[in-house]
């Protein structure tokens, strides 16, 4: 399964200390995101990716302290429940 995030223009973001406040235009819902959720959305905004490709892409851009596939899947589940990520 591949994951799709909304295009950048669908989100308004505001950094608030350690968090990112996100207004999701299609839903009108505000979310407060903690890392790594904003980073996942940024990477997926370019193109839909499956779990392994996403993990690789994140590893390209960041020093992953725990390149944990299950942890990433759990984060994606949270984003899907919130409607910020959907199955492509």
């Amino acid at each position: 399964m591949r994951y799709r995030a909304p295009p950048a223009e669908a989100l308004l973001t505001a950094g608030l200390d350690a968090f990112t406040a996100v207004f999701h235009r299609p839903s009108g819902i505000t979310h407060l995101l903690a890392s790594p959720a904003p980073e996942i959305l940024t990477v997926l905004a370019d193109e839909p990716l499956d779990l392994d490709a996403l993990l690789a892409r994140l590893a390209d851009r960041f020093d992953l302290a725990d390149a944990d596939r299950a942890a990433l899947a759990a984060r994606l589940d949270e984003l899907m429940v919130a409607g910020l990520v959907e199955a492509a």
Partner: protein
Amino acid sequence: MRHVFSVRIGPIGFRVGSDWREPIDQLRELYRYYPSPNLPDFTVRLEATRPWRRLVRPSIRIAGDYTLPEAAPLPLAQGLLAAEMAMNLQLALGGRRHLLLHASCVERDGRALLMTGESGAGKSTLATLLAAKGWRFMGDEFALIDPETGLVHAFPRLISLKNAGIAAAMAAQPDARFGPLLAGTPKGDIRHMVPDGLAVGAMDEPARPVLLLFPRYGHAAETLPVRGSEAFVRLTQASTNYVAMGEAGFATLTRLVRTVPAQAIDYPDGAAAVAQVEALWRTL
């Protein structure tokens, strides 16, 4: 309706209709120095729960543009309270031109201090104490943030004093005008106080928010900074229309918490709180 009264409080206009004369007479007296609206934003109805309850054991149903199905009826003797609750409810549920924060607000030199917290935290008491010290009282229920400018607009409705607060306020401000004592309401004894002349006279002048306080009564004096993310979440919960305002609400609130410092203050009594606030104000 039989008896009608219109009033503008800050930028918000109300039209109140009533099956009885008494609440309207009381409103007219207490809001004597307030202007009339060109076009009321909201309509409030104080109506009999049943046709015969207009005369027999009169019981007021609070109605209007917006209602809560669970609102309890009130006896006619508490008609003024019913009108005030109903006006607050219209704004809380129907207001869309401003981001509404459940907060009290005072102003000095064109700069506004916002205080928000649960009822009992003392935001209303603090606002009246500061007003007695020369600050301009802008409101003790809602602060109205303008999405275009980020300025806060005053909403200086009648101040609702409760229980022990009644005697304290009457002692502190013997010249103020008071409504009738409403004994035994669901919120205890209540008496309304008319905001002072400065508050009413300058109510059309907005102010720039410069400090956000989360006061807490009954603890040793302490002042702690509140981070933007925490202030943001707490204010979304202190707003009646944050979600309904959509994108404008998000832009307004993120701008507020990113530009205005927030502090939590615990205070043991009013005098200490005023000292804490004025100390914070000097650091700005």
